[in-house]
């Protein structure tokens, strides 16, 4: 026995190490809705760097898209291009301000229409992996943002806060596989649950006998206790009603364009 242990000790210790890691992960699944100490520290450390980089990048991307492609133009046009650049710069700046203005105006109109207190926030970073869908926002517990709060834009539901540190928070997007939103079809009020599936959503548990067609609008039902009733989730793109089974397979395209998410509103209401 002792000989066997001596021979296999590294292997056994590795197995124990892995089991402990797996056990720790499993235990943490129970407290998944709270931000633990380490996660808070990571958010506090990475948040300011991400916020700074986000500012620099948006400026650099602007320069890249509006100036750099002009550099290689013909020599004889240089003077003209120089003028063009200045004008383009002004235009780009104006465009950016105008677009931001439009976005903020829409958010403001939406904000005023909401009965719940809201807090505008800026998206500063994305998820570190390609498998999950979360974003980091520049508002946290100091501004009243806590785990479970819904996050929206004028177009519809964005997700909910899953981690919060004093100045930053992480939002789980509705397109993440672990996200589930209690929803209903706006037309016939058929209920179901919208689950994330990468870039799309799946509207689960819709009974077979319910009439669902492409183009139907899906809204939050308010049943889950996180999102208020009536927020737009997306639009039905395909319906697969099989011969057997209780439910039909409904695919939904989110109302929000997550690839261009810049400003969001946090609804300051605690989950019920």
């Amino acid at each position, binding site marked *: 026995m002792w000989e066997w242990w001596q021979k296999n000790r590294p292997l056994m210790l590795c197995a124990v190490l892995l089991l402990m890691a797996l056990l720790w*992960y499993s235990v943490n699944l129970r407290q998944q809705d709270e931000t633990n100490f380490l996660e808070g520290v990571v958010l506090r450390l990475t948040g300011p760097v991400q916020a700074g980089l986000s500012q620099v990048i948006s400026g650099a991307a602007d320069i890249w898209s509006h100036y750099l492609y002009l550099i290689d133009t013909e020599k004889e046009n240089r003077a003209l291009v120089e003028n063009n650049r200045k004008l383009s710069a002004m235009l780009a700046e104006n465009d950016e301000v105008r677009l931001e203005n439009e976005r903020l105006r829409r958010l403001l109109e939406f904000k005023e229409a909401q009965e719940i207190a809201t807090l505008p926030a800026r998206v*500063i970073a994305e998820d570190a992996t*390609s498998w999950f869908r979360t974003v980091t926002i520049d508002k946290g517990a100091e501004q009243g943002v806590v785990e479970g709060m819904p996050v929206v834009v004028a177009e519809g539901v964005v997700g909910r806060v899953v981690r919060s540190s004093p100045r930053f928070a992480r939002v789980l997007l509705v397109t993440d596989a672990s996200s589930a939103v209690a929803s209903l079809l706006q037309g016939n009020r058929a209920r179901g649950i919208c689950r994330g599936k990468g870039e799309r959503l799946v509207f689960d548990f819709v009974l077979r006998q319910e009439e669902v067609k492409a183009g139907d609008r899906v809204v939050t039902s308010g049943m889950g206790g996180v999102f208020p009733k009536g927020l737009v989730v997306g639009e039905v793109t395909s319906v697969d009603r099989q011969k057997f089974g209780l439910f039909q397979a409904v695919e939904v395209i989110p109302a929000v364009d997550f690839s261009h998410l810049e400003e969001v509103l946090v609804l300051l209401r605690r989950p019920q």
Partner: protein
Amino acid sequence: MNRTLFYLALAGIAVVLQTALLPPFLQGDYKPDLVLLLVVYLGLQEDRWRGGLLVYLMGWLFDGVGGAFPGLYGFVLLTIFLVVRGIVSRVNTESSALLLLLVMAGTVLQAALVSFALDFFRQDVSVLSQIAWQLPIQLLLNFVAGYFFLKLTVWLQRTFLPRSKLPGLRKLDSRYET
């Protein structure tokens, strides 16, 4: 201690690159997994216990900025590290191409472990089909990132620190390959 801090700083830089710097320049939700690259590299260079602890810490750092499952990446990255550590005595670690091969294998293993950890422990979350769909592009991205990491690291050492010995870099430099 210095080396540990150096690796942790590298992991921090990798995380910031993945979350804030690279996404605006990449289409969709794809991003190269630079932390995985570092874990494979550590698997080739560091001993089991010190490296294991370091990688587990990196996993926790990663969990703080990716996904919503604390401890998931601690488990996933530690497994990848131990697997690399387990085969390191059977392969030629002097070959720089090995790093690329292991990064590819690590990507597949990571995808399988994330699927297992979620599908097995959280029955309501299924990521298998989504990950399978995304895997080819992720493999390509990680391969390209690994290739540039290799070139850039060796170039940086040659240019700025030609006489100093940074941990493990000698093994990556093709000048020393046989």
